[in-house]
C-alpha cells in the first residue's frame, strides 16, 4: 500500500517525511497536481458497478485502490504548470483528481473537507473557545464604530490579517501590528478587519499535533515583539512540555475539526498562560524540527504508514483504526491519549 504525497517539487519540508517513509520501507508517490496533464496523468473508470483508477508521475504508477494514505502538504493548483493553463483547465483537472481521491478509502492528513473550514481564523477562534483554550478577546468587523469601541474597551489591541497578505507586486507582508485606541478606524468599512486584545508575551509557542502525538516548542520573545515571525533577536526554538490542560484542549480541538495535523500558535504571557492565536492546518514544522530535534517528520511518516483501514459506510467507526492504537517504538516529547 502506497502513501500519496500531494505537494510541489520545491517543498523540502516534505523531503523530511519522504526520507522517514523510506526508512520505514513504505512505498510512496509524490505528486504535484500542478503537473497535470503535461507531466502527470490520471485515469478513473466507473463500469459495471466497479471503480478503478490510477495516477502516474515521474515514471511511477499507483492504483487508487493501492493508496494507504494521502498527505496534503503544499500541492500546486491543478494544471498550473500546463502549457495551456487556464482557470477552466484547473477546475477540470481538480475535479478529476480530487473527485477520484475523495472516492478512495485512504486516510487523509488533512482531508480537504476538514481543512477548508479549519483555515478560517474566525472559525478557529470559536473552536478554540469550545476546546477550553484561553482566547484573547477578538473582533472581526466592517463597522468602524464597533472597531473603535472595541479598541477603547481593550485599550491595547493588535490588527492582523485573516487570510494573509495580498498578492501584489512588489510583495508585502502583514505582520500582526499593535495599534492604539485613538486610531482612526474609518477604513474598517473598506474590508473585514480582525482586531484582537494585545497579549504581552514572554514567549511564542508552536505546538504541532500529529494524530495523537504532540510536539511543543518555545521561543523567548524579544522585548516588545508582537509578531513572532518578525523582528527575531537571536532567540531559538527549544522543546518544551505542554501543560496537561493544553494537551486536553489540543485533542478536543482536533476532534472538533476532524484534523489529523495541526500547527498551533500561542502567546505565553508573564503568568505562563498559553493564549491561543491560531491553528494552521498545514502549518510548517520543519523549522521546529531543525532547531529542537523533535521527531515530527517521523511522527507524520508513522501516521501515514499506519496499516490501511477500510472505512465502513454511513459514518460508522472504522474497525481496527490506527487512531485506536498507541504509537510505539519511537522517542517523542509528549503523547497524550484522547480524552
Amino acid at each position, binding site marked *: 500500500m502506497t502513501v500519496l504525497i500531494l505537494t510541489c517539487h520545491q517543498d523540502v519540508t516534505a*523531503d*523530511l517525511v*519522504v*526520507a522517514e517513509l523510506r526508512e520505514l520501507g513504505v512505498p510512496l508517490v509524490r505528486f504535484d497536481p500542478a503537473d497535470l496533464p503535461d507531466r502527470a496523468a490520471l485515469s478513473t473508470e466507473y463500469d459495471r458497478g466497479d471503480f478503478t483508477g490510477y495516477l502516474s508521475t515521474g*515514471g511511477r504508477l499507483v492504483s487508487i485502490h493501492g493508496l494507504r494514505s494521502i498527505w496534503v502538504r503544499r500541492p500546486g*493548483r491543478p494544471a498550473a504548470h500546463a502549457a495551456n493553463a487556464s482557470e477552466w483547465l484547473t477546475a477540470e483537472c481538480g475535479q478529476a483528481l480530487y473527485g477520484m481521491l475523495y472516492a478512495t478509502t485512504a486516510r487523509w492528513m488533512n482531508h480537504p473537507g476538514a481543512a477548508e473550514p479549519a483555515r478560517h481564523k474566525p472559525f478557529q477562534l470559536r473552536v478554540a473557545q469550545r476546546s477550553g483554550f484561553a482566547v484573547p478577546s477578538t473582533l472581526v468587523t466592517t463597522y468602524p464604530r464597533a472597531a473603535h469601541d472595541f479598541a477603547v474597551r481593550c485599550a491595547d489591541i493588535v490588527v492582523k490579517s485573516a487570510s494573509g497578505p495580498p498578492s501584489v507586486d512588489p510583495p*508585502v507582508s502583514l505582520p500582526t501590528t499593535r495599534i492604539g485606541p485613538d486610531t482612526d478606524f474609518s*477604513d474598517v468599512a*473598506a474590508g473585514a478587519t480582525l482586531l484582537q486584545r494585545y497579549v504581552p508575551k514572554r514567549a511564542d509557542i508552536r505546538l504541532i499535533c500529529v494524530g495523537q502525538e504532540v510536539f511543543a516548542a518555545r521561543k523567548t520573545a524579544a522585548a516588545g515583539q508582537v509578531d513572532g515571525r518578525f523582528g527575531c533577536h537571536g532567540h531559538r526554538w527549544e522543546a518544551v512540555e505542554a501543560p496537561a490542560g493544553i494537551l486536553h484542549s489540543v485533542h478536543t480541538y482536533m476532534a472538533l475539526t476532524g484534523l489529523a495535523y495541526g500547527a498551533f500558535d500561542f502567546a505565553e504571557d508573564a503568568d505562563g498562560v498559553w493564549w491561543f492565536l491560531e491553528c494552521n492546518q498545514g502549518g510548517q514544522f520543519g*523549522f521546529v524540527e531543525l532547531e529542537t530535534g523533535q521527531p515530527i517528520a517521523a511522527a507524520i511518516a508513522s501516521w501515514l504508514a499506519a496499516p490501511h483501514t477500510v472505512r465502513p459506510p454511513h459514518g460508522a467507526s472504522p474497525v481496527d483504526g490506527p487512531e485506536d492504537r498507541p504509537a510505539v517504538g519511537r522517542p517523542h516529547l509528549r503523547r497524550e491519549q484522547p480524552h
Partner: protein
Amino acid sequence: MQPFVLKHAIPAERSPASVPYAYNAALQLNVLSDGRPAIADRAVLLATGTTTSTAGSKTHFDD
C-alpha cells in the same frame, strides 16, 4: 479608501531567487549540486528559510 489592515503592510523580504537544490523525480527528493539530499545539509535549509513559518507561497498562507 483601502482596507484598514493594509495600512499596516510592510515590504516583504524577497525570497532567494534560487535555492541550492533541485527536485529529483527519481529520488522524489530535492538534491544539492553534489548529489546529496538537500535535507542532509541542515545549514542550507536554515539559510534558505524554506522550512520557516514565513515560507508559504501565494497559495499557502497558513504556515
